[in-house]
C-alpha cells in the first residue's frame, strides 16, 4: 500500500474517531448535559448496573470496536510518521522495519483489545 492510501485511511480514521469518541464522551463524561435535555435517563453512568446494560448492547460493542481499531491505526500511523521524520538518516530498509514493527505491535493490541471487548459482551449476555 502506497503512502497515499495510508494517509487516506488516516483521514477516514479521524472522521470515525470524531463520531464514536463524541458518543463515548457524551455518554461517559457529559451525561449531566444530556440528562438535562432528556436525551439520557437519569442515573450514574459509571454504576455496575449501567455498565452492564451498555456491555450487553450490540451498538456499544460496535462503537467500542470501531473506536479502538481506528484510534490504534490513527495513532500508530502518526507514530510512524514522527519516527520517519525525526530519523532522516534512516535507510529505506530501516523505514520498512519500523513500519512493519509498528504494524505488528498495533495488530497485537487490536487483537487483544477486540478479545476484551467481545468477551465483555459475551459475559454480560451470558
Amino acid at each position, binding site marked *: 500500500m*502506497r*503512502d*497515499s*492510501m*495510508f*494517509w*487516506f485511511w488516516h483521514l477516514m480514521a479521524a472522521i470515525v474517531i470524531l463520531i464514536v469518541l463524541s458518543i463515548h464522551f457524551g455518554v461517559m463524561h457529559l451525561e449531566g448535559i444530556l440528562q438535562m435535555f432528556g436525551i439520557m435517563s437519569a442515573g450514574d453512568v459509571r454504576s455496575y448496573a449501567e455498565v452492564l446494560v451498555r456491555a450487553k448492547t450490540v451498538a456499544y460493542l460496535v462503537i467500542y470496536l470501531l473506536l479502538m481499531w481506528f484510534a490504534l491505526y490513527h495513532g500508530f500511523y502518526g507514530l*510512524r*510518521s514522527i519516527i*520517519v*521524520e*525525526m530519523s*532522516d538518516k534512516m535507510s529505506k530498509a530501516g*523505514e520498512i522495519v519500523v513500519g512493519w514493527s509498528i504494524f505488528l505491535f498495533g495488530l497485537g493490541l487490536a487483537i487483544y483489545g477486540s478479545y476484551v471487548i467481545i468477551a465483555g459482551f459475551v459475559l454480560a449476555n451470558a
Partner: protein
Amino acid sequence: MSGTTDSYKTNFTETKDIVFKIFRYEPDVNPKPHFDTFTVPVVKGWTVLDAVMYIKENLDSTVSYRASCRMGICGSCAMEINGKPRLACQTQVISELRSKEVVIKPLANYPVLRDVVPDLTPLIEKHADVRPYILRKDKKVEVNPKGELYQTPDQLEEYLQFSYCIKCGACLAACPVTGADVKFIGPQALTQSYRYSVDTRDDGFKLRLEVMDHSHGVWHCHFAGACSEACPKGVDPAFAIQLFKREITARKFGKEVEPARLARQPADVKRRENIPYAPEKTVKQ
C-alpha cells in the same frame, strides 16, 4: 568608492541610522561564524538590498551576498531578514521592518557557502526530481510537437498561480518539516509537481507520483503554512500541497484525466506574405 558614495548622497533627503547585523562565515579563513555590525544611513525607500550594497561599497567590501535583478524577479537575494526568509530587494528597511536593528542571516535549511550566500543545491535537486516540464507518453509530442496542445483559459487558471515560482528558496527555509527531515521533498518541488500534474497538456502524473507518494513526500507536509507566508510571489505552496493531496487521492479512486490533444494544423489557409518566418533553429535535431 567616492563616486559611488556621492551617487548615494545625491539621493539623500532624510536619513535614518539603522544598525545592520550581518552573519559572517568564511569557512576557508575562519570556520567560526559571527556577526558584524554596521550603521547605515538609510533613506526612505531603501530596501535591505540597497543597504547591503551600501555596506559592501562603503563599509566592508568583503561582505558576500547574492543578488541580480533587484526587482523581485530572479529570486537570488533571498535571505533571512529579522527572522523571516524574504527577498532583500523587496523588503523596505524603514516602512516594512520598522526596526532600529536589522539582522541578516543566510536562508535556513541550506548549507552556507559564505556569509549570507546559501548553497541552493538541495532546492535544485528536489526541483529536478519532479521533472518540472511537460511530459507526454508520446515522446514525439513531448519533444517536437507538430501543433499546439489544447488548453482553455479555465484550465490555465488551475495552475497559473503556482507557475509564478522564482526558485528563490524562501519556502524551504521557512518549512519546519524540511528543518527536521532533509529528505522531505519540500514545498517548492511539491508545488511545481502539482503545477505540472494539473496542466492539461501534461501526462506525467504517474511518473511524478513515484517521487511524491512516499514517506518523505507529499503526505509528510504538516500544513504549517510557513512556506506560503514566506513566498514573495504569492504562489501559496501550502495550498498547492493540499490540492495535490486531494488530486492524488481522487486519481487513486479512479479519476481519469485525458491529456490535451494536439490541435490540428489549419488547412485551406494561405500564409500572408508580410508575415516573416521564424528564424532557423540554433540546435539541430
